[in-house]
């Protein structure tokens, strides 16, 4: 098992004809992801290395049975593309695009929650990798193998860092999920942790958070109530100064809110062990799984 993407994924890529879109689509297909179609308005009828391109999501879904979308279009068009995919009946949308306006994200989030049955991962995320099954996004798959550790993270490269340390100790992953670094992520830590809890293959959950917002605190409360599997945490940004956006639009300490210390404390209060360095996260994971 795996979560969010797997062997039943039928992927349609929005922005497939752009250079980044083409590059990562083909990378994903090479990994074994079933890429069935792409969407670029005005380029319907063309193909990208044999992958048919459509003008609208509605025709792509109708013709190719796509059930998952990857959004690769630039920020001004991304919210529109997400809503189009949802309206066309896509149930899993993974938005890689960085820099979408926050008010757009808010409208999309509210609409998708109302129109239940659609799951959005991201935006501003590296995507989802289920090793051995499917890769949707930009995660460098060669560093990861199948296994029993589920990883959920607000940051891409930090996920690779932690995942690589686990891999060097012999651990693999059920799925690796980047929920993204924006103020309004489509899926929260809680959404993903709940799926890992229900996934029989996942035996340990690693969550990697960072400064800003209160998603980690909310996740801590949820873990305390609902999660039986061991969870190991990491929080980036202990030394971040207040009032400064640290790269990710959502990574900002506002006054006394959103600090790394408060997040680590909330997690530790419910029994989650929090590593102070990525290396320590791997060490704790190894200790728990016993190897």
């Amino acid at each position: 098992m795996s979560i969010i993407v797997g062997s039943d994924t039928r992927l349609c890529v929005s922005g497939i004809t752009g250079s980044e879109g083409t590059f990562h689509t083909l990378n994903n297909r090479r990994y074994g992801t079933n890429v069935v179609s792409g969407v670029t308005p005005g380029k319907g009828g063309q193909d990208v290395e044999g992958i048919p391109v459509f003008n609208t999501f509605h025709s792509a879904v109708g013709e190719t049975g796509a059930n998952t979308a990857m959004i690769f279009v630039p920020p001004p068009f991304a919210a529109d593309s997400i809503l189009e995919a949802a309206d066309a009946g896509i149930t899993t949308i993974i938005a890689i695009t960085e820099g979408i306006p926050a008010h757009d994200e808010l409208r999309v989030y509210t609409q998708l929650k109302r129109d239940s049955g659609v799951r959005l991962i991201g935006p501003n995320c590296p995507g989802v990798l289920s090793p051995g099954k499917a890769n949707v996004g930009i995660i460098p798959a060669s560093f990861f193998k199948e296994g029993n550790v589920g990883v959920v993270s607000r940051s891409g490269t930090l996920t690779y860092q932690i995942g690589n340390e686990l891999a060097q100790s012999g651990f693999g992953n059920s799925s690796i999920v980047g929920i993204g670094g924006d103020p309004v992520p489509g899926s929260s830590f809680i959404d993903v942790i709940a799926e890992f809890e229900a996934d029989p293959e996942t035996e340990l959950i690693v969550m990697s958070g960072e400064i800003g917002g209160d998603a980690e605190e909310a996740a801590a409360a949820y873990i305390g109530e609902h999660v039986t599997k061991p969870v190991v945490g990491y929080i980036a940004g202990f030394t971040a100064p207040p009032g400064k956006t640290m790269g990710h639009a959502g990574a900002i300490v506002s006054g006394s809110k959103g600090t790394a210390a408060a997040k680590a404390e909330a997690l530790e209060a419910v029994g989650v062990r929090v590593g102070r360095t990525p290396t320590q996260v791997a060490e704790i994971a190894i200790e728990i799984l016993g190897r």
Partner: protein
Amino acid sequence: MDLLEYQGKQLFARHGIPVPTGVPARTVDEAVAAAQEIGYPCVVKAQVKIGGRGKAGGIKVAADAAEARTHAEAILGMDIKGFTVHEVWIEGASQIEAEFYASVIFDRGAKKPLVMFSTKGGMDIEAVADESPEAIATLHVDPLLGFQAYEGRRLAFEGGVDADLVRPIGAFLAKLYDTFVAEEAMLVEVNPLIVTPERTVAALDAKVTLDDNALFRHKDNAALRDPSAEDAQEQMAHDRGLIYVKLDGDIGILGNGAGLVMSTLDVVAQYGGEPANFLDAGGGSKAEAITSAVEVILSNEKVKAVLFNIFGGITRCDEVANGLIEAFRQIKPTVPFVVRLDGTNDVEGRRILAEADLPGVHAVATMNEAAETVVKLAKEASA
């Protein structure tokens, strides 16, 4: 992006929110001319993006031209909590019967706009929230429906305003919400929102934070960015499209990906070092971006050693190595570099660096070892 008070008021005025008439000034003579135009009494207000201006002596009432000059001379160039005053705003003095508070906040937790109103204005709202939270009326707005008239009434009634003010306060809040949505703000705050003896309302202050990601469709707002008020290195990085935040220490940091860079700062601090900056060279960093980033890092004279922490995903380690070699050719750095390359094309990247044998470049295998080494080198350089 944070706006100055007067820029915020100009935005408010565009959306029909009543604000006192005023004129900005950058010199003493301009300030006096502005005061003459506005008439007396008028208020000379320091324009800096920090609270507590009044207590710091940055807001003064002038009864005539001589006083306006004295105040402008005192306030222009004044330092308020580390911010130099480059600009003042001269506005007509308002008659104040009562001071209220109003704001709209992008509430990330609830994923809805949060509107707040209180009759306890003119003071720090966080203090009000701590001491008497019941004095603040709040509600979340459905972002797809927008702000409804009943929500304005409810906030006014729950805030406890007099009957004759319910309608004006409701209308004020509706316009504030319009501003928040139309200008794509993360925060709009009015403190104080004043009631005049004629029982009209107006925004006497304005605190506005705009969404940087939305500035591409608000060209007027984007033009309000004032490079002269920014740190020289941050401006240089901004011009080159790099994500850079200046910090107080002496260890320059470069990494790829915001999370990894934040984590690198933390690990360096754990080994007893003090980072000089946050710099995210971004995904897929090409050699030119690396060269450019090294220039920005070294333009901060406090930097005594530099740490490269790269975990290549889209970023290729051979590109990073070539970028560093090019930076050494162009800039000839005199401080030591510690370089950790892992991920995509790491073997190739390390080979390129080893062959180039750059002076003062230490290649290390892990993030922890990299942090430890750079802290040691920075300490040696300071000794």
